[in-house]
């Protein structure tokens, strides 16, 4: 009985410690953003990695999400004779919710996992020790450009996802269901308000920080994983980073939606 309580207490204390460690980690990374010299070369490289190279999956997933959404809305609206509202419904769903969330999930799968594994391997190979010994802060040199790159890239990817998603809806509505293209776009313009766009931007900004923070932090503290080391530890923290990012992102999505709707 006492052993179980001890285990529970130890696990709880472990979580609190981890939270504190991650808080200090983010603080150091933010300080790194404002330290000089800033790694512009690394920033450009990371924007290319997080942003430009994520474009194919963002375009494909955005297109298919918009198309699926259009088919479902058509089936639901046709019974009420309201298919002309389809453009607005598709656009609002994508901009408010699916755009930021699906983009974040795609980025977690592609960038979050790769970043976590890369940083964990850097830790295992003493690359951070080497940077520290060269008087180069790993927070400034490695982490800060990644944080900024995520903050720049993920909202832009979300905007592209939104546009492509609406286009997917347009393709289904106009070319497959014979709706009027002008009417479709008019309902999009009439339905979408500034608050919808603001919600999309705010959510994608919060998700960007969350995803890259968790990915970098899990990788950076790989040596603190209990009972494992080397390749197994890298695999474990990468899995944890993906799961923790996805769950926290959905939680923050709920909180942001509650405040912004």
């Amino acid at each position, binding site marked *: 009985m006492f052993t179980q309580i001890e285990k529970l207490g130890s696990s709880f204390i472990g979580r609190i410690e981890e939270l504190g460690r991650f808080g200090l980690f983010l603080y150091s990374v933010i300080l790194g953003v404002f330290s000089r010299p800033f790694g512009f070369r690394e920033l450009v490289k990371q924007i290319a990695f997080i942003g430009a190279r994520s474009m194919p999956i963002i375009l494909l997933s955005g297109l298919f999400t918009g198309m699926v959404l259009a088919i479902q809305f058509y089936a639901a609206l046709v019974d009420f004779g309201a298919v002309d509202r389809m453009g607005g419904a598709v656009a609002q769903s994508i901009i408010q919710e699916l755009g930021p969330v699906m983009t974040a999930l795609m980025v977690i799968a592609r960038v979050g996992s790769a970043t976590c594994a890369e940083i964990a391997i850097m830790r295992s*190979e003493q690359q951070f020790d*080497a940077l*520290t010994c060269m*008087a180069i802060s790993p927070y400034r040199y490695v982490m800060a450009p990644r944080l900024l790159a995520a903050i720049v890239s993920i909202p832009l990817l979300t905007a592209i996802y939104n546009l492509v998603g609406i286009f997917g809806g347009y393709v289904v509505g106009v070319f497959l269901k014979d709706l009027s293209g002008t009417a479709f776009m008019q309902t999009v313009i009439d339905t979408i308000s500034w608050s919808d766009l603001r919600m999309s931007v705010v959510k994608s900004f919060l998700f960007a920080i969350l995803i890259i923070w968790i990915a970098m932090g899990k990788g950076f503290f790989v040596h603190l994983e209990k009972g494992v080391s080397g390749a197994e530890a890298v695999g474990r923290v990468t899995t944890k980073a993906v799961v923790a990012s996805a769950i926290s992102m959905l939680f923050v999505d709920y909180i942001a939606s509650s405040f912004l709707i």
Partner: protein
Amino acid sequence: MTQKTAKTNTKSLIEVNQLDSAYGDRQVLNDINLSVNEGEILVIMGGSGSGKSTLLKNMLGLMPPSAGEILFDGLNICDANRSQLSKLRRSMGVAFQGGALLSSMSVGDNIKLPLRQHTDLDENTISIMSRLKLELMNLADYEDLMPSELSGGMLKRAGLARAVIMDPKILFFDEPSAGLDPVTSVELDQLILQLRTAMNMTIIVVTHELESAFTIADRIAVLFDGELVITGTVDEIKACTDSRVINLINRTPRDIQLDADQYLSRLTKGAE
């Protein structure tokens, strides 16, 4: 072949006083007292688990000791603030066991990194300086390769090139011979001796390779189970009568003495 020429001053550059170090509850180093003189090559030697890597981490400021002090030119790094540590580290070079090159950039970019970060030199000068060091390490043709394309010995030499790119006063070298063939290992020993002769560096080498230690060291500090057994010249180490040092030199396996009860208890541990 470069000869070992000990032109050391008696001025102590680094002093380790009453140092204790621990991982959680596990004590790794006990009451270590050590000094490194300016211009000397000090080899920290010991078997696996003796605490030599922990001592190195303590001395590099990568891990705080649980007690004691480490003085670099009078500055206690255990109490130093970030800017003092940063200034000190610019006068130090560290060559890690596996090179610890940044895997995302080429060998050349790795070596140029400290110059790009800490100096205002133009790119041409930085390139010339990095090629000089690469030539010194016999790596001139490998500048554009990625670290993953180098062998273990090349990685160590590239790591050494990066460690000395800023012409540091003090060089730390972690396990220069580990995992290398005998010829490459001898080449690295000669490189260390060349560096000391050419640049008058103070060099601290952590190793468990006896031959390498006897070749390069002015003095050797022998660690055993977290205790500093002896610090002395190669001849003093060879003449040492402490059984732990004799066993290390003669490569005698550790004989863990257990009586029958202890042995049985270990075998049946956890059984019903």
